[in-house]
């Protein structure tokens, strides 16, 4: 299993850089082993450097950069081995318009192998969905769910 982990690590590492460039444009990204001499127990660490910035610890990243970095790893793992199903609850909330576009682009690209369920208030995210469900409480305190169209959602928001 040591060989297997090493192969998986090297493969995901490459995909992490690939997805990072799609979501962030330029910049540098790397997955590193905390203890490369000991493949059996070594941990994994994320290093990223947004375009043109210096390498720094993750705490200094902005809210949106953190969310995008998390998505970078998630999507790299999906490229390595798609899981049947992915459920994301308002992960687009901290993203600006340009980054929402890149995020939904990746979701679209991965959706032939993975079913995505996206809870969102963002109209740009809704617009890429194959189907939309509206959850409401017509009777106070009681949730119901029904299939809706993008036009119906746009009208309800007004």
């Amino acid at each position: 299993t040591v060989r297997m982990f090493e192969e998986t690590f090297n493969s995901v590492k490459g995909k992490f850089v690939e997805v990072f460039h799609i979501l962030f444009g330029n910049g540098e990204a790397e997955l590193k082993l905390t203890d490369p001499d000991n493949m059996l127990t070594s941990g994994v660490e994320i290093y990223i450097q947004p375009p043109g910035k210096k390498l720094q610890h993750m705490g200094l990243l902005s809210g949106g950069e953190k969310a995008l970095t998390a998505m970078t790893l998630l999507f790299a793992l999906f490229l390595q081995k798609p899981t049947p199903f992915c459920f994301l609850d308002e992960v687009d909330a901290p993203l600006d318009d340009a980054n929402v576009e890149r995020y939904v682009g990746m979701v679209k690209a991965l959706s032939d192998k993975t079913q995505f369920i996206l809870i969102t208030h963002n109209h740009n995210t809704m617009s890429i969905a194959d189907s939309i469900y509206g959850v409401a409480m017509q009777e106070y305190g009681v949730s119901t769910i029904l299939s809706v169209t993008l036009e119906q959602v746009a009208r309800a928001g007004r």
Partner: protein
Amino acid sequence: MKFNKLYLHGFKSFVDKTTVDFPDGITAIVGPNGSGKSNIMDAVRWVFGEQNAKELRGADMEDIVFNGSQKRKPAGFAEVGLTLSDIDEAVAAKYGTFSEITITRKFYKTGEREYYINNRKCRLKDIKDIFMDTGLGARSISIIEQGKVDKIINASPEELRFFLEETA
């Protein structure tokens, strides 16, 4: 493996029998604040076997059962069912089915818990076995709760290694 539909009855704000179909591709779930969107994700994590009420935003397991509204009395139990298809052949054979399988979890306010696979009682372990090696589970990285997207970058190096091992 494919998710076909989710059935909710008495789970949090879904007091009436509710069915949600999951078509292929991308499904968006929208709606006003407090309408019950995140409760659907809680239902999925619960039917996968989540045992800690705090992970479902409750103080104790009773909090997942519909606790009443202006016009409705509290429910006595919560039930969630998940129908899957394209499952692993060995699993399908075990439950005597060719394609679909439905996992169901029930919790009564009196404390009893029940698990079913295709309407036959089973243990929680049986449900967890279905998802072995798929990267799916109550706390899998592919389910990200509201406001917790940082859980991936705040993870320890050991946790990150575990996420990678799940995809090996």
